[in-house]
């Protein structure tokens, strides 16, 4: 009885969609943001429908399957202008994925990955986890905390090693980073794979500004008057680049290689720094160096 009443009420709800942005997908997904009837969410846990917008490299198949598994059941999948990497959900070739998203909101995809730990237990060393004493090691493929020097104050605290990307919404889509973190301070970076190609549309100033301001919690309207520039720290150039975008100019500065630029920055600063360059320039900076 109560459930029926809840279900009836829930029928009018917005569909929470987690958008995986593939190649050329940045601008179309931005266009979905203000469509009524759906809400783009930041975490797959909050979603009902997985929308894959734009082609995703086959190298990221496992990552995409894991993301699919993170959406609570029942879940649906839509491949929008993207070749399916696995046999779940339906494809849309046209410009409007909304009907397919509505259909997917009633779908119930079976699990794509088997329900087993991604990294089986491997006991090592006197405490079973490998590592030194009772710290460190790599049980279940999860690196345990181990003390290491902080690059800012030299205090030896626990470091955290993990892979971030390729579909985290605050990072440029496709970018995969292996990070070593001390709290939220980045200690070292290696680029595992570069961001996807986004084309000319992805470099549009208004879109770039909106993406950056979203990370700062506001909509782009009158951003300058509301102190958006003052909120950014001087020196890193993020302020200068956001100012250019808000004036409608294209940013011509190119990022230095990530393993040199990011260490020492806090998570929020690093994310803003990455968002302050054109997607095409960032992609170029992450590509493996061509042999001369």
């Amino acid at each position, binding site marked *: 009885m109560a*459930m029926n009443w*809840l*279900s009836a*009420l*829930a*029928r*009018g*709800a*917005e569909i*929470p969609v987690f958008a995986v942005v593939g190649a050329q997908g940045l601008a179309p997904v931005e266009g979905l943001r*203000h469509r*009524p*009837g759906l*809400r783009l*969410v*930041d*975490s797959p*846990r*909050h979603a*009902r429908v997985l929308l894959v917008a734009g082609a995703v490299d086959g190298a990221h198949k496992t990552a995409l399957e894991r993301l699919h598994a*993170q959406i*609570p*059941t029942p879940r649906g999948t839509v491949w929008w202008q993207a070749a399916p990497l696995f046999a779940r959900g339906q494809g849309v070739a046209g410009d409007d994925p909304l009907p397919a998203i509505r259909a997917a909101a009633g779908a119930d995809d079976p699990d794509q990955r088997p329900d087993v730990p991604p990294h089986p237990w491997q006991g090592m060393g006197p405490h079973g986890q490998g590592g030194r004493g009772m710290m460190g090691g790599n049980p*279940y493929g*999860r690196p345990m905390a181990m003390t290491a020097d902080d690059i800012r104050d030299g205090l030896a605290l626990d470091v*955290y090693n*993990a892979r971030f990307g390729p579909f*985290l*919404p*605050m990072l440029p889509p496709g970018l995969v980073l292996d990070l070593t*973190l001390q*709290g*939220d301070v980045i200690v070292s970076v290696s680029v595992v794979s570069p961001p996807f190609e986004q084309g000319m549309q992805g470099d549009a100033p208004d879109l770039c500004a909106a993406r950056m*301001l*979203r*990370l*700062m*919690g*506001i*909509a782009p309207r009158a*951003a300058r008057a*509301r*102190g*958006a520039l003052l*909120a*950014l*720290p001087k020196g890193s150039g993020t302020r200068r680049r956001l100012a250019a975008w808000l004036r409608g100019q294209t940013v011509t500065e190119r990022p230095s290689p990530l393993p040199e630029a990011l260490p020492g920055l*806090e*998570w*929020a*600063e690093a*994310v*803003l720094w990455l968002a302050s360059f054109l997607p095409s320039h960032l992609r170029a900076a992450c590509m493996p160096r061509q042999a001369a």
Partner: protein
Amino acid sequence: MIAATLILLLALPPLVWVAAMFDRIGAGRGTVVMGPLQNGAALVLRPNTETEAPDRLNRLLAPGWYLALALVGLSVVPLAEDVVASEISTGLVLWGACEALTVVVVFLHGWSPNAPLPLIGAYRYVAIALPAMLLSMFVLIGAALPAQSLSVVEVVEAQREIWNVIRQPLGLPLFMALGLAITLRGPFDYADGAELAGGTSAEESGPALALWHFARAAMLVAFSAMAATAFLGGYLGPVLPGPAWLLLKTLAVMAATVAAGRFFVRMPPARMLTFLWVVLLPLSFASLALVGVEVLP
């Protein structure tokens, strides 16, 4: 006292609904009135998620603690003359305890799923919320000085001649910074922000997430009622009955807090930390010193 408690319990859900409506006004999201109920119902029908090796007890309890703190905080607010749920002489201290424990609860919410982004959100929130709490303590002591009492009832009665918002103009804006911090909103949302993909809530779904959102809105109601009481004279006002005045003032503060949350930019946390310690905290000292000079006989 029992009547006041019952009134608060009955009034909270509709006020949470209103808070959720305020969040949708002007956000370009369509149905303002029914939207929160429909989305809430859809969320409740989704399953909770499991994470790997979570702290189950704290994960289960954190949203409930948050809601409980909002309710306890709300209970010290007098609804009319002599009508208050927690009639204690140290109401402001109880409210302060709820503020401080909110930091613990938000930390537990980020800690318990055992995942990196929620944990970063949890640590960052503690770093930012601590100075925000300090700030509110100075501001609330300022509100208590003219009343010469820590009782919230006395604080209201001391505003019969003139509201605190006029006597201490810095108080309300500074207290709103705390409101944004304890309701995880806009410029102070270092726990659940977009740059952490939902931060402490990133791993939650279903009823647990729905309860977290509900508790967050309930905390906004509690904060708004407290701000209306400490600075806008609470239930005092002509013609209309006391509770109606309190309701109107609470809604006004709520609207202002939601608007401020949308208007102001979230700085990177290190910059906000400097801003809090170097600008806002000295301002709150100055405000308290001015109040002290005013109440000198």
